[in-house]
Structures are given as structure tokens and as C-alpha cells.
């Protein structure tokens, strides 16, 4: 590969000129821009962004997208930049962006997914496997690459949620299987309920399962009167709404289990057990066995309880 950094020349760039929608060399970073904005306000741009002018006069960013975004936010009229020759091939430009970024920061799974998607567009699979996956820390397995490729095609807000840990990779993978409208309905629901990533995953899995199994669109499942009444209930706090919503969906997916759980709770309640005794049912009520747990404050007390139990047995 030729070094395209040698023939660069300096220019004064209007931050509004580059097309930020262009993804040719895009390696996304989902961190907040605030710190970078403050840094540039205090000391300016230390490393000049790198741009390429493509036929038609359009400027695309090779390196420094966030610096340009920050400059726009601050309202700078011009920044020092470098320009690479327009004949630099896409693959070489992407390599510049890749190696510059990977040397400086950790790629979270959202960034990995976008990068893998782009690498697979530009290079042969075997090249991706030998030259890039080892530095990305990704196993050279086709199905894993396909999953990342699909995730890498998700909309920015979904990827940002994945990057920030608000949704898990498993949730993102399910979202890739939905059409845009359904996906946005899920995202909006998760935002509304404000749950953690694990609970979001459970909810999305259950709703997706119900949708597939009953051949019903997700939007229909989450807009039935029962769910709407939970979401619109002004007397419930956000965590209460989330909890009721999850339970409702769970009761549709596992009706027998939820019924068993209720019966079990009712049975325990009727027995009015002392606080130090708890009874657990078998996993998923697979059989009628129970585990009884008795907490004792001391070994003496434990000995007495055991002696009494053994005598009675």
C-alpha cells in the first residue's frame, strides 16, 4: 500500500464543508462530544483532520469526524486540515482510518460491528480474517462475522444504545431481524420503560418470541389494551410500570408457569410460615419437589431445629 500521508497538503477547512453523512471511512465513536468540545475550546485542534476531495468537489472525512463535529458545535469558521489526493482508493483510506483509530482507542461491540461490516464490503473474507480480526479480538468464525455484519447495519440510535450498554448484543441481534418500524417500536418501548440491559433483553426476547410464534406484528402485541393501560397509568412509577409490563408479557409467553408461580405463592401465604423458613419450588416446576430452607441464628439453634425435625421424622 502506498503511503498516502506523504503527499498531503494543508488547507483551511470550513467545518461545515465536509459531508458528515458520508460513511466511506467512518469508524464510529459513540462517546459524548462534550469533553472534546471543551478541549477544543481551551486549546484548539492539535491533530489536524484529514479530508479527501472527491469528484464533484465534495469533501469527505478520512480522520477527525468528531473534531469537525465539535468545531461545528463551537461555531468555528475554519480549521487547519490536511487533504489527501482524490485518487486515493477507498480501501487505502479506510485502512488509514482503521489503523489510526485502533491504535488509540478500544472498539466496543457497536464500533466493531460497523467496522466488520465495512471491512467485509472492501476486502476478501480471508484478508479480513488474517489482517483485521486478530487486532479486533474477534474470532475468525463466519457466523460471528455475519452477526456483526447485520448489527453494523443498524441505525445510529440503536448502535449508540449498544455502545453505551443500554442494550445487549443479544438484543441488538434480535433487532436486526425486525423491520425498521418494528425495531423503532421496540426501541421506543425500551426508552419508555427505562429498564437495565438484562431486563430489556428479556423483554425483547419475549415480545419477539410471541410475535413469531403467534404470527403477530410486535406493534400489535405491545399496543393491546392491557399494555396500554399499564403504560398510561399515571399512578404507577416508572419502575412499577416496567415491572408490570414485563410480568404481563411473561404471562403471555409462559401462561402455565405464571399460573404455577401464583398457586405456589398463594400456598405459601396460606401456610403463614415464620420468617426464617423459605420454600423453593423445582426449576420451572419440572416436578413437585420443594426445597425447604430454615435459617438459624446460631449453630445451637440449628442443632435444636435439626434434633426436633429428626425426632418428628
Amino acid at each position, binding site marked *: 500500500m502506498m503511503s498516502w500521508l506523504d503527499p498531503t497538503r494543508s488547507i483551511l477547512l470550513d467545518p461545515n464543508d465536509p459531508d458528515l453523512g458520508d460513511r466511506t471511512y467512518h469508524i464510529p465513536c459513540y462517546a459524548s462530544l462534550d469533553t472534546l468540545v471543551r478541549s477544543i475550546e481551551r486549546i484548539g485542534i492539535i491533530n489536524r483532520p484529514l479530508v479527501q476531495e472527491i469528484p464533484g468537489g465534495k469533501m469527505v472525512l478520512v480522520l477527525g469526524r468528531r473534531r469537525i463535529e465539535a468545531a461545528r458545535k463551537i461555531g468555528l469558521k475554519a480549521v487547519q486540515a490536511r487533504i489527501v489526493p482524490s485518487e486515493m482508493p477507498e480501501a487505502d483510506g479506510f485502512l488509514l482510518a482503521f489503523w489510526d483509530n485502533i491504535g488509540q482507542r478500544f472498539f466496543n461491540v457497536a464500533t466493531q460491528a460497523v467496522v466488520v461490516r465495512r471491512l467485509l464490503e472492501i476486502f476478501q473474507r480471508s484478508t479480513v480474517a488474517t489482517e483485521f480480526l486478530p487486532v479486533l479480538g474477534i474470532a*475468525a468464525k463466519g457466523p460471528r462475522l455475519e452477526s456483526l455484519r447485520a448489527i453494523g447495519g443498524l441505525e445510529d440510535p440503536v448502535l449508540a444504545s449498544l455502545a453505551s450498554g443500554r442494550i445487549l448484543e443479544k438484543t441488538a441481534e434480535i433487532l436486526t431481524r425486525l423491520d425498521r418500524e418494528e425495531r423503532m417500536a421496540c426501541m421506543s418501548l425500551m426508552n419508555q420503560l427505562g429498564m437495565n440491559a438484562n431486563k430489556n433483553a428479556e423483554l425483547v426476547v419475549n415480545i419477539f*418470541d410471541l410475535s413469531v*410464534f403467534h404470527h403477530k406484528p410486535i406493534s400489535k402485541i405491545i399496543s393491546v389494551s392491557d399494555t396500554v393501560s399499564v403504560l398510561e397509568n399515571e399512578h404507577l412509577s416508572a419502575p412499577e410500570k416496567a415491572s408490570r409490563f414485563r410480568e404481563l408479557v411473561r404471562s403471555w409467553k409462559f401462561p402455565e408457569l405464571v399460573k404455577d408461580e401464583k398457586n405456589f405463592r398463594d400456598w405459601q401465604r396460606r401456610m403463614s410460615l415464620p420468617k426464617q423458613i423459605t420454600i423453593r419450588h423445582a426449576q420451572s416446576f419440572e*416436578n*413437585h419437589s420443594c426445597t425447604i430452607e430454615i435459617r438459624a441464628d446460631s449453630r445451637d439453634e440449628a442443632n435444636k431445629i435439626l434434633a426436633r425435625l429428626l425426632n418428628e421424622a
Partner: protein
Amino acid sequence: MEFSVEQLWIDEDVLDEPLTHEIVAKLPKAFIQVGRASTEAARLLDLEPDPLNRGKRILRLMKHKGAFIKPCPGTREYLCCGLKILHVGQGCPMDCRYCALQGYFNRPVMELFVNIDDLFKELDLYLNEDHLTFHRICTGEFTDSLALEPLTGMAKRLVNFFSGIKNASLEIKTKTDFVAPLLEVDPQGRVVLSFSVNSTKISRNDEKRSAPLEQRLAAAARAQDCGYAVGFHFDPIIPFLGWENEYFETIDKIFRHLRSASVAWISLGVLRFVPELKEVAEARFGTLSYFHDGFLRGLDGKMRLHVDRRIEIYHRIAERIRRHAPRARIYLCMESPHVWRESLDIDMETNEEFAAYLDEAVK
């Protein structure tokens, strides 16, 4: 129909095995890679979007270095029949969408152990050392017992061997109808030829490249006429909408083709799977609605339908079977004593009782 093998990967240490030569001679058009060349090919195969799909056309000939006879990988939380697995190879040229093996093996190609002298020596030793115990042995756990029979002749060799053994039986389990070579051998009552069966809908849509149900049943009838005991495995039973009538139809067909007296056993198992399987299968085949039913984590960590639903399903199927064959030896694969009692009305409390129940059919 024979399965197409496009590539043979041969490990260097089995180049001189007689079975290697036999197989190479039967596949003149196959692309052959020996030793290290296949390691690089395996790396490239792993990179493909669906390595398993291509792997089903690649056969690796290799030496099995561990024990050939292993206990069935049952779990202590459920009743296990004590079947022993004779490990002749792994992977399968058929491509059932629900197949558990998709989530089980790391390597996507089919593997065949060609050091069969070692296999027969071990078998001989195993059965002689423990000659007072009766052993039910099966080859169809990690592969289909007959899928590669036209290439290997392995099942026929095994039938020959078991026909002279008093303290063991061999179960050959298949979704093919490749029984013809076996019919030339008298099994002497020591061999059960079993067929995995399902509803026509599942067979047609989800058991890619397997023999159609009618052909499997016709093969079972031919085997029965040649002195073989036959078995049927309804596993996995998939309770889609309207499942009852479809499964009843299969049961009715079985007893139209076969005499109930020659049916050694019929096993039932509702779909259950390790959680990863859903992901692997759907990455390969797209969304499969049955994986989205209300599966719960069972005592062994596998996903299972609620126990009451399983009981209902087993009860309905067993009832239909008993209409045709009131004394049919029906069993449940990996279920609890509670489920046995509630669905089959059989008190089966221990693995030992379970093993004895099946041993009776072949002793």
C-alpha cells in the same frame, strides 16, 4: 439416493487404512486433501457464513484415538435408559433444521473413524470383559447410522458382528432408507433397525435431504420381513398448531406398514435444546417458529416446554399408539418419573428399571 461428498480430507495417519482405500475408490470425483492441506481448508471453511452447510459435503477420514464405546450423554436430573454409544464418526449429510448436533460440535465437516480394526477389538474386549451384563449399543447418536453406509459398509459389518453376540444388541438409527445391504445379513435377533419419524409436515419442511416418511416406513417393513426388530423414535415432537392430527397420521401409517409384534420400542421426546441451538439454527435457516414457543430452562439447563404441556403431548401420542398396539413398549427420552407416571401411566423410578424395561425387548 446417496449423499454427495465433494471433498475428502484424509489425515496422514489413516492413509493406509483399508477403509480409506475403499472410500477413495468409491469417490473418484472427490477433491482430496491430505494432512496439513486440510487444516488450511478447515480455517477457510470456518470463515464461511454457514460452514455447516458446506461441511455436509466434506468427509474427513481420521483415526479415533479415544474410547469407541461411551455412555449416552444423559443427565442425572432425568431418567436415562443406559444406552451405550458406539462412536463411529460424527456429523451427518442430512440437514435437519432442529438438529442438536448443530450446536454440539466445533468442527463443521463430517468425520469418519476409519481405524475400524481398533473399533472391533475394543468392542470385543468390552463385551467379553463384562459378559454378564447386557449392553444396548447404538451408532446413531452423533451421526445417522446409515447415511454413509453406501460408502463405508460399516453398519453391515456391525450387524455381522452383533449377530454372533449373546450379551448385547445393536440399534441402528436412521432417517434414510439405506437398508438394502443389511437385509443380506441375518441379525439373529440382535439388531434393532430404528427410524426417526415425525409428522409429515416436519419431515417435509425441516428434515432436509432425509428420506420421505413413506420411504422410511417402507424400509422398516422390508427390514421387518428380513427378521429385524424395528424401532421408532418420535423425537423431536414439535407441537405446532394442529400437531395432534399430523402425528396421529404418522402413527396410523406406521401400523399400516408394520406388524406391532416386530416393533421393539417407540420413543417419544418433545423438542428440547441447549439455549445456543436456537441461535445457531436460526442463523442458518432463518426464523423457525417452533423455537419461539414458551420454552423454559429445565433441570438439566436445556430448554423445555412446561411439564404439563409435555405430559399432555406424550399422553395423547401414547394413547394413539396403544390403540394400534396395546402392549407397545413406549418410552420417554430424558424425562422424570413424574412425567412417566402422568403421561404413560408407568411407574419408572430409576435408570436401572428403565434399562431393564428396554433390555427385555432385545434380550
